[in-house]
């Protein structure tokens, strides 16, 4: 029984461990002077030897009119290649701390059945691409990396590590938005960073593979998916889950039929 619960949540446990672990390492750097991981999700100094940088931030900064140092750009390329060629959009569900918050909001939304009577606000999932573009257009106009100014990921991280100040308002806004208005509202509809990784990780190797032969159409996968549109092929045809899938693995672990599995993308098919 217990084993089963763990099995049914194995990726969730791993993801939360990684997400909180990273927060702890970042926090430790500030609170106790640890040297494992200094900085934050925009740029992290790893083991005092190299940097990992958010390529989207590098791009915005470039758009705003500043070419970052080589260290930062190299760090950005490493990250871009890692997600773009290997891990897919997994930043969003394995690393990003906002994901913890929006998952919580969704869980509460479902538990309290808040989703049943709220159809007054609908947002297209493509909005995030517009926001991504708008941010890059605004950056040179306002002379600052436009998304970074309002980025709730940075605010949440800084809030936890350095103290919130008034920054919690943005974070609470995201939480309430997801809780009260739109299911998976922020991560699934608005966040330009998610949009950025969706676009850039199109050809990543790690993807979830669906085996339609085994599928019993129980639809548990669709219940847990944040980007439900990526599961259009469920029960219809075998293949790889593409698009905005963040490789969270929820569908894999809830599937009782072994119809969904992490796999390496086969370009030949």
């Amino acid at each position, binding site marked *: 029984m217990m084993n089963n619960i763990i099995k049914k949540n194995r990726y969730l446990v791993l993801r939360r461990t990684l997400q909180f672990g990273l927060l702890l390492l970042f926090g430790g750097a500030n609170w106790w002077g640890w040297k494992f991981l200094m*900085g934050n999700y925009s740029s992290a*100094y790893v083991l005092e030897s190299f940097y990992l940088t*958010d390529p989207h931030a590098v791009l915005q900064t470039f758009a705003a009119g500043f070419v970052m140092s080589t*260290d930062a750009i190299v760090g950005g390329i490493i990250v871009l290649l890692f997600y773009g060629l290997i891990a897919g959009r997994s930043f969003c569900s394995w690393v990003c701390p906002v994901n913890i918050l929006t998952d919580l909001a969704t869980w509460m939304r479902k538990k309290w059945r808040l989703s049943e009577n709220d159809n007054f606000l609908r947002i297209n999932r493509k909005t995030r691409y517009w*926001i991504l573009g708008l941010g890059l257009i605004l950056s040179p106009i306002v002379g600052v990396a436009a998304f970074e*100014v309002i980025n709730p990921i940075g*605010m949440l991280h800084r809030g936890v590590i350095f103290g919130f100040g008034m920054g919690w308002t943005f974070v609470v806004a995201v939480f309430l938005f997801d809780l009260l208005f739109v299911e998976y509202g922020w991560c699934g509809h608005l966040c330009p960073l998610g949009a950025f990784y969706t676009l850039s990780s199109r050809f990543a190797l790690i993807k979830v593979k669906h085996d339609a032969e085994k599928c019993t159409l129980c639809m548990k996968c669709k219940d847990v998916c944040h980007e439900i549109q990526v599961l259009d092929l469920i029960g219809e045809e075998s293949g790889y889950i593409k698009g905005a899938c963040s490789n969270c693995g929820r569908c894999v672990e809830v599937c009782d039929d072994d119809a969904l599995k992490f796999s390496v993308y086969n370009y030949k098919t």
Partner: protein
Amino acid sequence: MADELQNNSRRDALKTLFQGIGVLGLGGSLWGSAAIKLKASELTLRPPGALEEEDFVKACIRCGTCVEACPYDTLKLATLDNHTAIGTPFFEARLVPCYMCPDVPCVPVCPSGALDVKVIAKQIDGHNTDEPDIRRAKMGIAVVDQETCLAYWGIQCDVCYRACPLMDEAITLEYKRNERTGKHAFLEPVVHSDICTGCGLCEHACVTEKAAIFVLPREIATGKVGEHYIKGWDKADEERLINIKKAETKESSPEDVLNDWEHLLDDE
């Protein structure tokens, strides 16, 4: 019927398009003005080695590595209530000043180049080296309010002078006779803006209720002289000519000026 449907769907599509543009425009202008507001930071003191404010807010990736590197907890990342670009590092000298560490640990760790060793490069024989020199930091300038500075009252204070890490260079004491008492002297602190780094140790130490010496960003605290006048007694001042822009002139017609003579006569 089919036509109607088609018309309707076209109308819907147009409506959606306009709505989309409207939402984007509204969102964009809100976002843009919020961004401008949130980067407004004229009164902010930046870590040593920071680029010019305009470039700094562009360059800073808001990662906080400099904050973590600071051994004195001087640096903080701005939150919404700090009136400066959110997430960027800054310090409030009255709370915790910059202690001017000789190895300047906050600068080399910056990934983006927003804090740049080159800005404060140690110079040997006029050439920049790769080492930082904290004395070249230009975080701000200390300004003395002579009305509330106790030393200008004649009190033997000069706490700021002794707190200054560049004592006798950045702050010197100017001696003046106290005519009122007839036998005491004023020992007045004077800040030398070419040397002051803006570390704020003076502001931190000042004993008045609200500091009578305080650090302002250099842009706020300094004036600027036009390049058309060079100090005749100071050879080094000529360096200002290096940056001189081509003199802009505006043309206007002298005839128009000449023809405008009637106002010279008094009204009858």
